[in-house]
């Protein structure tokens, strides 16, 4: 683990990673153990998986409980009102995470 990185951008142990599902119990085989990896994976996984987790609040829960990143969780919450689905949702999530990540790494 790289000590020079801010806490939020560090990798977490594999058992605390985010595991992408498409529905209850259906695991895609993709997981992310850091915010950087999370950004990579949300570009790859199916839109169905993004919709499943986004509207269950799984992403926010992971940001808060594992990454301890309340700010990003708040950014995601703001997207709820836009009622996004499919590739539009993916684009928005990628945009929010990449802007946030850029800001964090510049600190």
């Amino acid at each position, binding site marked *: 683990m790289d000590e020079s990185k801010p806490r939020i951008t560090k990798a977490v142990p594999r058992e605390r990673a985010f*595991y992408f599902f498409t529905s209850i119990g*259906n695991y895609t*085989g993709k997981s992310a153990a850091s915010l950087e990896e999370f950004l990579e994976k949300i570009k790859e996984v199916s839109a169905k998986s993004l919709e499943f987790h986004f509207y269950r609040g799984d992403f926010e829960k992971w940001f808060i409980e594992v990454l301890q990143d309340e700010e990003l969780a708040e950014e995601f919450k703001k997207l709820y009102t836009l009622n996004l689905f499919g590739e539009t949702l993916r684009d928005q999530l990628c945009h929010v995470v990449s802007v946030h990540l850029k800001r964090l790494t510049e600190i």
Partner: protein
Amino acid sequence: MDVEKLIIKEEKVQRLRIRGNNTFNLDSIDLKILEALQEDARQTYTTMGKRLGIAHSTVYDRIKKMENYGIIKKYMALIDCEKAGAKHIIAIMTIYTDPKESEKVAEKLCACTQVLEVYTSLSEELQIIAKVVAESQESLHEFIANSIAPLPGVLRIRTSIVTKKFKENQPIIINNYRNLTVAKENGDKGNKV
């Protein structure tokens, strides 16, 4: 002969058999006893003996032998959970695994109380099939996401939630008893029956 002597005699016989030969063939009487037990495991040796036309002591001897060899694993009640008021869901999980890790994944699954049955299957890829019980869909998802998906070697998981049960029974033993050989083992691993 009283029961105590009979048990001692049986134990001696078992020890000799186990020392001399690790396997034995089930004959038609053993199979009939197993079938009778699968229908009703609480019937007496006498009732079973009368039905099968053999002495109750023969029934006793055969059952003890099969218990000692692990052919009869245990006696348990088949409970109708709906009538018992237990609210839960059952799901069938198909776990695609890296072949190098599949044994370990199966062992981990066996150690989970939520997992009722675990099997391996080979079609295009190596799969582990497991029957799981959970309180709700949410707890099922939590269990799979937190305990199964992170296991090394798990490639992906498909889960089907059971919506209606049409039949549930213990498998009836096959009748081709001539080909049926069972090895004496302590665990549950791979009895080829």
